[in-house]
């Protein structure tokens, strides 16, 4: 298919060529007939050219003039006016030229007259067809299927008349008058469609009247000029292209005139009521603005502003206010055309009159307070309308509107304001839900980061000796916890090992955990005894833990040379030890105190160091309270005894197998994949 641009160019070219052939053909026929010569060109050529010329213009304007939906109506009418103006100026120029010649020979030359006549015909055709397309756009604004069909019939009938001019069919020739009448009737019928007028505001209506009147003037001028010229030429010869025989042009002139006249009258009669339409339109726009405010506005204040503004302008109130209830604080006021002091006066006056209503924010009734207001001395207002604003069935505030005439608010207005306040309530509720969701999202994102930080703090590999095997497992709950374990090689045969649990959850727990890691890695290399380490760690943490936070820790020093383990406990879960000779698991019962609980020098008094010798097959199980406090459906805890029995049962297995079995046992016990707390276990088996 050709592009829009190409079609426009092509039709322009075609229109110019056909018009030139028309002029040349018609002139040669007129010349031949007036000089009694046999015309060298067939008499059917000029009408064919005229039809082709009209058709080209038709296509040209069809693509040139946009749909009414995408353009302002006044702009469309403006196009008609401009086309008319240009064509009229050109036509006037010819007329001026003709007048200047006066009654010279040239002025009476039929050839010259015919040329001027044909020029005018071309101009009026352009004007008529462009106007026809504009009228079409206007008529088909908000079209129905029926209207569209009717229009198509009209348009095709018109175009058919072009064909009919070219091929004079004898049978139809006699029906010419009926055919013209039919076209005019169809035009009248279609002219009843002017929905667009309702969408014009007061100012636009005036403009439209002016533009249409001017278009009618052009039409009248052209028709008059053409008839005169045709008459003049007709005196010399009948062998020219007489538009008076052209059904298409005549029908078009009639249609354009009728629609222009109808529009003019309708707009004129609509002028007084246009303010009502404008008001309705504004209501819709305001309502839309209010409902869209949730998507675009950044805060609730803007919603209140828009509500007040829309309400005031929609009911033409002289003043208004929104009072927002703020528990424990002074209520907040949004005002329009009224001071807060004046509002307080009105409220005082109304409550003095014992009006139980909306303004005292105790009832949900909307009542007309007019008669009470009329007794208020010194106030310029005589009517008041008040509505509550609700969010989730809770009154958020009140909207009040004032007018300086009595009975200023009618039922319609009450309904509209009711809708407005409802919509504002919904907007605010949505807005709050959205903010909450965003807040939640941010919190979740923060947790995700904390969780990443936490898991990156745990060692990927644990340093250990050939003297024993060591595995660790840690699984964090949805909320970030603060379980930590690590190892540090102090010397060739000495390894320091730590397990910690930070109190609390969330980002602060992850933060404290990273502090613990720092402390471990700086103090472990000093080759401290477990008690010394814990004292130093306590001192360091006392400076940075917040008041209600603490960290429980067990610290071990494993010496593979002497095969001893020395350890101390700072409030951490007691260590489970499996003695392979006794075939029994026991918990070490040494005393201890969580780090950060006592932030002075006395801390050391509460720490007991313990030590034991290990032999092949002994097992040490370290864990955090998430393991022993894991609950099943009955609310029963996994507990110490179950853990002890477990290790006695699996003591022959390797550390990896023991760990896997323990994990399975825990999940089986809780019966769920989701855990409330962090599980951390560290299992050592001596070779």
């Amino acid at each position, binding site marked *: 298919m050709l592009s829009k641009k190409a079609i426009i160019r092509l039709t322009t070219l075609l229109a110019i060529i056909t018009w030139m052939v028309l002029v040349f053909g018609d002139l040669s026929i007129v010349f031949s007939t007036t000089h009694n010569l046999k015309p060298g060109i067939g008499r059917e050529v000029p009408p064919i050219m005229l039809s082709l010329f009209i058709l080209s213009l038709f296509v040209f304007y069809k693509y040139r003039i946009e749909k009414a939906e995408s353009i302002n109506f006044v702009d469309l009418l403006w196009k008609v006016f401009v086309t008319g103006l240009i064509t009229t100026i050109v036509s006037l120029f010819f007329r001026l030229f003709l007048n200047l010649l006066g009654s010279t020979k040239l002025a009476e030359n039929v050839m010259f007259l015919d040329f001027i006549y044909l020029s005018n015909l071309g101009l009026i055709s352009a004007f008529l067809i462009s106007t026809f397309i504009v009228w079409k756009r206007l008529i088909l604004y908000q079209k129905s299927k029926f209207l569209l069909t009717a229009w198509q019939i009209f348009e095709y009938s018109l175009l058919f008349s072009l064909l009919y001019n070219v091929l004079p069919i004898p049978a139809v020739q006699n029906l010419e008058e009926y055919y013209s009448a039919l076209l005019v009737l169809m035009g009248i019928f279609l002219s009843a469609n002017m929905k667009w007028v309702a969408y014009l505001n007061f100012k636009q209506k005036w403009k439209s009247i002016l533009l249409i009147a001017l278009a009618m003037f052009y039409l009248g001028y052209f028709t008059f000029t053409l008839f005169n010229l045709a008459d003049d030429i007709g005196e010399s010869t009948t062998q020219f292209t007489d538009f008076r025989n052209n059904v298409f042009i005549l029908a078009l002139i009639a249609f354009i005139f009728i629609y222009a006249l109808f529009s003019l009258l309708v707009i004129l009669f609509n002028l007084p009521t246009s303010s009502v339409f404008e008001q309705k339109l504004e209501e819709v726009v305001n309502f839309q603005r209010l409902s869209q405010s949730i998507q675009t506005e950044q805060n609730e204040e803007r919603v209140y502003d828009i509500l007040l503004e829309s309400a005031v302008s929609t009911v033409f109130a002289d003043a208004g206010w929104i009072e927002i209830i703020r528990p424990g604080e002074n209520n907040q006021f949004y005002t329009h055309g009224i001071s807060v002091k004046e509002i307080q006066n009105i409220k005082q006056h109304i409550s003095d009159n014992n009006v139980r209503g909306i303004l005292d924010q105790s009832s949900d009734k909307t009542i007309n307070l007019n008669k009470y207001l009329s007794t208020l001395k010194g106030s310029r207002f005589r009517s008041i309308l008040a509505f509550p604003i609700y969010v989730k069935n809770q009154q958020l505030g009140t909207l009040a509107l004032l007018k300086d005439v009595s009975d200023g608010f009618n039922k319609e207005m009450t309904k509209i304001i009711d809708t407005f306040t409802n919509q504002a309530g919904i907007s605010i509720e949505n807005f709050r839900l959205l903010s909450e969701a965003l807040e939640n999202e941010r919190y979740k994102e923060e947790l995700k980061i904390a969780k990443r930080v936490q898991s990156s703090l745990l060692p990927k590999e644990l340093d250990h000796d050939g003297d024993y095997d060591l595995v660790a497992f840690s699984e964090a709950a949805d909320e970030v916890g603060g379980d930590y374990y690590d190892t540090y090689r102090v010397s060739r045969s000495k390894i320091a090992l730590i397990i910690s*649990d930070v*109190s*609390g*959850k969330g980002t602060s727990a992850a933060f404290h955990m990273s502090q613990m890691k720092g402390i471990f890695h700086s103090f472990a290399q000093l080759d401290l005894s477990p008690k010394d380490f814990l004292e130093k760690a306590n001192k360091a943490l006392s400076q940075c833990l917040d*008041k*209600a*936070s*603490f960290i*429980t820790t067990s610290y071990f020093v494993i010496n593979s040379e002497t095969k001893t383990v020395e350890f101390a406990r*700072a*409030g*951490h*879960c*007691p260590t489970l030890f499996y003695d392979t000779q006794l075939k029994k698991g026991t918990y070490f019962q040494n*005393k*201890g*105190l*969580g780090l950060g*609980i*006592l*932030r002075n020098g006395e801390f050391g008094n*509460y720490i007991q160091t313990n030590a034991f010798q290990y032999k092949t097959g002994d097992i040490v199980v370290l864990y955090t*309270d998430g393991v022993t406090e894991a609950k099943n459906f009955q609310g029963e*805890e996994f507990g110490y005894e179950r853990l002890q029995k477990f290790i006695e049962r699996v003591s022959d297995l390797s550390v990896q197998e023991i760990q896997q079995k323990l994990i399975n046992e825990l999940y089986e016990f809780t019966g769920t994949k989701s855990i409330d707390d962090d599980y951390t276990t560290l299992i050592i088996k001596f070779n």
Partner: protein
Amino acid sequence: MVDIKRIQEEGYDVIVIVGEVDASSSIELDNAISDAVKSGKKKLLVDCTSLEYISSAGLGVFMSYIEEFKRNDINLVIFGLNDKVANVFEILGLDQLLKIEGTKEEAKALLG
């Protein structure tokens, strides 16, 4: 969930904790102890007969007042802990710093 009440008895305040103290409900416990401390009472009892569970955050609340009790000469005695909860206090070592008794009578006797 937790339900915390403050009861005035002759000579001392009793804080009764019913239910579970976790991270979120520990705030209520903190408020209750803080109010009791602010009221100027020097003798406080904490009734944990119906305390079923206490998380580390709950323990943190008790811990955070240890210094203040010492400074202001406040005597706080906890009583009625069940075995499980008592064990939690013990493991952390708080039993060495707080006064914990079995029954209300014993607790009152300790207050003098």
